């Protein structure tokens, strides 16, 4: 089905997915398919379908995987995972939302352009099956955030009030995030956020999300892409991730074994922080 012109990354991805489907180890492979101009999540079950398997496009597909695995408790699932998808899945396994042993990842490395689009520092999964690992990336600080961080605290508050007042409470940030999936969502409770109002109350709506995700967010940017009103959510969450990193030397989504420093019990005493933190 491939012509010699098929790009290597695409061929590698199809081959890996084909091997996995052919092995019979999985019920199917969750990935993206391209039909003319549209890229959409798709559950591939046959070799023929893989013709439309797409290497392009970004959907937070781990959220779909979670829902499928809940629905199909005995099945193993293949999933095409970029670096961010893998980090989502690692967090979901840590949280006990999905069973890691039922997952077979097909690692897809992002191209430089794709990494730049997301300002992704780690645009590859731990094992790469398709594409080339471009290595860790660094980006200059976001100019708007730098400007904001230089402001006095009240001006910063005014900045965020203005930014979050654009919100039309679509819940797209929550809905698109594979890791923002509590059974009872606080954002829906009127005791935390008054219902039926746009913009939702500042700062409760957005700070509840920020705190809930402080030790989970892997910085994929799905929330920002799902925000119709252009709220800079990726940068907002990056600031919090950086705080967590400097306080606890902890990054979400890297390994299954590393527990969140924010999870503790009273017997352990206070949370441990790095020497230069707190």
């Amino acid at each position, binding site marked *: 089905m491939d012509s010699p012109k098929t790009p290597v990354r695409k061929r590698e991805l199809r081959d890996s997915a084909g091997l996995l489907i052919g092995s019979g180890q999985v*019920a*199917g492979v*969750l990935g993206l398919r391209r*039909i*003319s*101009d*549209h*890229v*959409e*999540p*798709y*559950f591939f*079950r046959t070799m023929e379908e893989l013709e439309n398997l797409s290497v392009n*496009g*970004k*959907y937070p597909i781990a959220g*779909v995987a979670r*829902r*499928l695995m809940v*629905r*199909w408790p005995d*099945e193993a699932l293949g999933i095409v995972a970029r670096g961010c998808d893998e980090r989502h899945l690692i967090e979901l396994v840590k949280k006990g939302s999905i069973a890691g042993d039922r997952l077979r990842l097909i690692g897809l490395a992002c191209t430089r352009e794709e990494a730049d689009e997301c300002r992704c520092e780690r645009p590859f999964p731990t094992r790469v099956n398709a594409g080339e690992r471009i290595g860790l990336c660094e980006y200059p600080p976001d100019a708007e955030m730098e400007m904001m961080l230089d402001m006095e605290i009240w001006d910063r508050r005014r900045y965020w009030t203005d930014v979050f*007042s*654009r919100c*039309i*409470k*679509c*819940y*797209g940030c929550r*809905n*698109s995030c594979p890791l923002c999936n509590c059974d009872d969502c606080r954002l*829906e409770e009127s005791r935390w956020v008054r*219902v*039926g109002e*746009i*913009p939702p109350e500042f700062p409760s709506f957005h700070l509840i999300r920020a705190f809930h995700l402080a030790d989970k967010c892997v910085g994929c940017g799905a929330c920002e*892409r*799902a*925000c*119709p*009103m*252009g709220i800079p959510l990726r940068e907002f969450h990056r600031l919090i991730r950086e705080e967590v990193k400097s306080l606890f030397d902890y990054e979400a989504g890297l390994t299954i074994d590393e527990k969140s420093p924010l999870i503790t019990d009273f017997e352990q005493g206070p949370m441990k922080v790095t020497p230069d933190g707190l």
Partner: protein
Amino acid sequence: MDYETVMSVCPYCGCGCGLYLELIDGHLAGTMPSCTHPISRGALCIKGWSAHEFVESEDRLRKPLWKRGANLESTDWDTALYFAAERLKYIADNYGPDSIGFLSSAKCTNEENYAFMKFARSVVGTNHIDHCARLCHAPTVAALARSFGSGAMTNSVPDIEQSSCILVTGSNTSENHPMVAARVLAARENGAYVVVVDPRRIHLAEYADLFVQPRLGTDVAWINGMMNIIIEEGWHDNDFIIRRTEQFEELKACVATYTPDVVRDVTGVEPGLLRLAARMYALSSNSAILYTMGITEHTTGTDNVLALANLAMLTGQVGKPGSGINPLRGQNNVQGACDMGALPDVLTGYQKVDDDEARGKFEEAWGTALPREPGLTVVELIDAAASGSIKALYIMGENPMLSDPDINHVREALSSLELLVVQDIFMNPTAELATVVFPACSFAEKEGTFTSTDRRVQKIRKAIEPVGDSKPDWEIIKLLAQIMGSPGLDFAGPEEIFDEMASLTPTYAGINYSRLERSSLQWPCRDEKDPGTPILHRESFTRGRGVFVPVEWRPPAEVVDEEYPLYLTTGRVHFHYHTGTMSRRSPTLNREMSSAAVDVNPEDAEDLDVEENDLVKVSSRRGEVKIRARLTRMVPPGTVFIPFNFQESAANALTNPARDPVSKIPEFKVCAVRMEKVTPRVVR
């Protein structure tokens, strides 16, 4: 084990967002925005994200119903269809075809609107067909057709980002067309001016470079006032006026009297502000106007739109990228329902029924004679039902018992009918009065096309089997026509309907299902090579030259007095859709807002001794509602606002059915009311 994403289009507003219905093992499991769709671009509003939620609701009508004694009882399809067919035939034979009226639906597909329109005109033989576009953009269709020759949004939703100045008036865009508001904010990030002119301090006003708050019902005055300033200052586009328009001198004479001081007296707008608005709009390189019901739902609705068209032509702000007049259509397929000729005076593509050549073309294609005289409009049909000249109404997917003005009058009218056929997905206050009710399929259970606000024709796809015994609307119409002995609606499916429609409609002639398979096309699209038309009126107007139609300001039909000292204005809220039949059955949307409130300015509240959440009674000359109060500075002192989405506190019990003389739209946006606190009886 199956997971599918079915590409579709949002069934709520007219933005036309592309979304996926998610199916897990054949069950509807969620909605997801399409990242590659030109409108949604990976985002949706809360209604879009919840689009699947009402589809399999317990409340869906699952079986046909017919009236036995005082009650509606369930029955089978044959019984219901034969009963309705016989009654329709009997009434047509005995009282004539014009004793039957049809209300079509801006929620249904193009194919269904076409089939319904064909049924009314060719099977029954009447032009009495209309739909709720009458209650939203009828003035747009009338006015822009007169000024430009085409009554639709001139530009595209994505194109708004190209604007350097956006004048938003009478549109609460962030609540009711969220994905358009997204483009407004994006344009602002690119440096565009945003000018909001609205009697209410809407969400978008917080992001406006300039917010102008005129009194209710004074639109012609401030628009003429802007033109007065523009001409005085020489900010008008002489070249455009000379090359592209006619009757400029008439306009100039008319607006000469609307000096800033005169306008201030009428509208309350300070001359400085108006001048700034005029300057921003006229002198920006690409200015766009966005408007909705705040402009149209007035007895001067057509005049308001004509005035906006004059303003755009005066400054040459039309027919360019990011520059034009954009009436944002309310319903997912209200543009399509109009395009399909579900209107009393036109066939598809706005071909006039009284144009012998156009009608002749349809008579030949359909093999039957068609009525020549334009039929009655929505509110006229209701009046005619009340007076007895309309004996039967066939209502497909509309709920006039909540959407029409003065619903006590609507109830009397519908109750006096000999036959009321209602076809819907849910029981609603209108269906409760029906003689026979047909259960129809929702957007998720059928194929077809919707035409969204920017003339974008898109396909919806069947995701699940029909709920209960429901059938797609087109199929119900086809079965009824078969029983009535008319073969003209024997379509195999929606595609065949679309092809017949396109063959009779020049603006749709180049569109077909294979071209729509994975993309959208914007009409006019005249042949299979035509890529569609994202921007109208580029080189010349549809009618050739644009015509200035000068209009004078007239006050609203009802003004405040001692007995009714407050103005009431009505509209929609972000979390619900129109009469709420769908959105109130969506758990997500209902959790956000489960009841209505009347918005009251704190100053008025203090005068009336009303506090937040107090129960108040709002009464007009036509009715009263009890409703809880919400104190907000969104409304100015002297004006209250009630959303029309809620059956139990129906704003339209109060509204004034007085109509615009041209487009027949009722004045939903202004009437006079009185408000008093309801003192709860103390239980001892």
